[in-house]
């Protein structure tokens, strides 16, 4: 292949990303809170050899007539991890009101549970309504401040993951020492929003550093993967240029997709769903059409400098299956997508090395 293969991810959010998705004939809204529902989606995504799924989460309110309520994304991720073997699992976590120490060990543990397939999508929470759930802050900070806090949070996650060197567990019976404590490190992070002493209670996870992803490029190279929402190919070019040198290793574009065997059916479905609940509220561009058309678009946009795409299925199971059973074979035929998993860790699937430990001498 002349170019490196595309990377593909899926964003899973309950019944799909269209607010009326749960009303589709094949939707199973009464099962949204059951483990089997999520296990089924992960199995489908893995069948399609996708690089990763993100599991969406939010402290925000759902609108009337939409799916209301959700389960914690990190726990969904952990619940499905033992049932899968290769796919990367990237739950979302709100970093504005939560504890970096807790999240760091949770994602390290997800990495152990999944054998090196964990990532974390960091997300801010803005506004007084969400702040009131915790009752500790007014929720009046602007997004720039919230992203500055998120950057500190990511720094703490990463330092805690490195706070144990590989091989710190020595089990030296002669001296009675279980660990070599010289290979454990205080992180001594002190910032405006929190101070964290460390070390983590959880040893360095299998990937060393689980994948850190963000929905914007604003966290720069502190993240491994950013999802942008360009309107078209030239917009993608411009946005990648704006990231400059401080860009993450991978940049994907988000696309909301309505996929059917012919474009007319896809358009009709979109019109029907929009009539029920209005259009999907997403900054991502919307694609409506066939798998062959979508494959062409992805390969065209890729030239803007994107290494992959995250697809937002408008409704589940329909659009998820069209991605795994139509789009993926189409991309394979064009030599643009893997025909088998080539690695068993998420960093491996994305061609990222296991990073050196910042504290190791």
């Amino acid at each position, binding site marked *: 292949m002349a170019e490196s293969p595309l990377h593909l991810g899926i964003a899973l959010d309950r019944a799909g990303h269209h607010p*009326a998705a749960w009303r589709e004939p094949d939707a199973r809204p009464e099962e949204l809170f059951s483990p089997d529902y999520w296990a089924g989606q992960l199995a489908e995504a893995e069948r399609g050899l996708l690089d990763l799924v993100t599991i969406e989460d939010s402290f925000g309110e759902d609108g009337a007539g939409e799916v209301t309520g959700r389960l914690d994304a990190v726990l969904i991720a952990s*619940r499905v991890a033992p049932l899968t073997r290769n796919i990367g699992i990237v739950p979302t976590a709100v970093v504005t009101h939560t504890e970096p120490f807790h999240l760091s*060990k949770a994602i390290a543990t997800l990495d152990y*549970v999944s054998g090196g397939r964990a990532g974390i999508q960091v997300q801010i929470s803005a506004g007084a309504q969400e702040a009131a759930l915790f*009752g500790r802050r007014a929720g009046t900070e602007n997004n720039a401040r919230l992203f500055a806090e998120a950057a500190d949070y990511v720094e703490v996650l990463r330092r805690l993951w490195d706070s144990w060197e590989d091989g710190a567990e020595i089990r030296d019976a002669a001296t009675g020492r279980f*660990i070599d404590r010289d290979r454990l490190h205080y992180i001594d992070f002190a910032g405006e929003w929190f101070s964290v002493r460390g070390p983590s209670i959880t*040893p360095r996870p299998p990937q060393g550093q689980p994948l850190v992803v963000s929905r914007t490029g604003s966290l720069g190279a502190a993240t491994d993967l950013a999802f942008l929402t360009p309107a078209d190919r030239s917009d993608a070019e411009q946005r990648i240029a704006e990231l400059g040198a401080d860009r993450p290793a991978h940049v994907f574009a988000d696309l909301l997709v309505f996929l059917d065997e012919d474009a007319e059916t896809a358009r009709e479905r979109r019109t029907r769903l929009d009539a029920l609940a209005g259009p999907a509220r997403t900054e991502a561009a919307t694609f409506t059409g066939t798998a062959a058309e979508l494959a062409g678009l992805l390969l065209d946009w890729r030239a803007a400098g994107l290494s992959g795409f995250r697809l937002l299925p408008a409704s589940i199971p329909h659009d998820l299956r069209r991605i795994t059973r139509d789009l993926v074979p189409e991309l394979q035929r064009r030599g643009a997508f893997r025909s088998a998993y080539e690695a068993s860790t998420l960093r491996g699937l994305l061609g990222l090395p296991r990073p050196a430990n910042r504290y190791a001498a």
Partner: protein
Amino acid sequence: MPKQIHLAAHFPGVNNTTVWSDPASGSHIEFDSFARFAKTAERAKFDFLFLAEGLRLREHHGRIHDLDVVGRPDTFTVLAALAAVTERLGLAGTINSTFNEPYEVARQFASLDHLSAGRAAWNVVTSWDAFTGENFRRGGYLPYEQRYARAELFLRTTWELFDSWRDGDVLADKESGRFLRRPDAGAFAHTDEQFEISGRFPVPRGPQGRPVIFQAGDSEQGREFAAATADAIFSRHGEFAQGKAFYADVKARLANYGRRPEQLLILPAATFALGDTDAEARELAHEVRLAQVSGATAIHFLEQLWNRDLSGYDPEGPLPAIDPDPGEPKISKGSAATRRFTDRLETARQWRELAEAKGFSIRELIIEVTGRQSFIGSPGTVAAEIDRSVQADASDGFILVPHLTPGGLDEFADKVVPLLQERGVFRTEYQGTTLREHLGIDAPVAVRS
């Protein structure tokens, strides 16, 4: 029918219970160890698996303690993963009420209850120390005296969140487009001395309504907290006479809260050593104790009581002539043991008396005073002793802590459990699907603001 025994398995935590130097001792962090341990417990029809939590690595002489197992996973994350590899086993975990907020913890436990189809349990613990607080946003903000006040308000707040949804609130009617039966399902507004929160709780009511609540504190406050709020106590009084006294004390407190004795189970932690004969078991028990208390570990324990640097002392020699430092603990941090010694001078006097009477070295003394195994003997002997304890109301069952991970439960499952089943005091099959059903405790009555 005789009183039925409840049994649980505690994945060993970061203390000297685990004989990590044994070649059969496996990983304490790889998921396979947890999965294997859980599957053994489920094969044996145990009520639940229990995971402890730590939020700061222990320190000794200002350095990270390195003699025991160090390092463990996140409680919630492991329990959710174990739900994927087990079907009936209850999944209990310790979660701190000091360095968390009710909305988030309730969201996690309600999610775990859905993801495990009704098997979640929460051991509510308190901590207060600035040492642990150094890992968290708020630092060491909570005065020692307020730790139970916060814990109880925290717990009651989560109940309000769990109860903010009712069974059947998810209508999901595709035709009419109504997702909720009640538009305000999940809405809450709560104010007390600790928490002022409002909004919509995101998780519909779980299979158990609320997770099963455990409490592990032993102080007067801890016992009252348990009597008022808990479904089960993780007790440390496994010994027969002490167990009976504790059991009677706590069960008597329930009436003050309008609760019946069977609404709170008393489940002490218990260790065991099994052999083909009682004599073989005693030999194994002694070997395990020797391995658990190395010379370095013996000095470490002694320093926790003495509150002094005793590194110059020979563990195989006599106790120090100097008295303990009765001041604030300064040698050891992050260990519950240091707070357990209320009167250092008196405890040291008792230890000296014992050592002199028996001619014990430091190490022999520590082996003696830090607890022999709860049950030692052949499978028949151990089954009989467990049954006797439960029938005599010294407990309602036991939370077993094996000295090897992850295989340390196998022999108990294979040899002791069948004898308890033959006696008609332990289930041969799970009768229900939820942990509340295994424990025989009532569904909670909803509290609504």
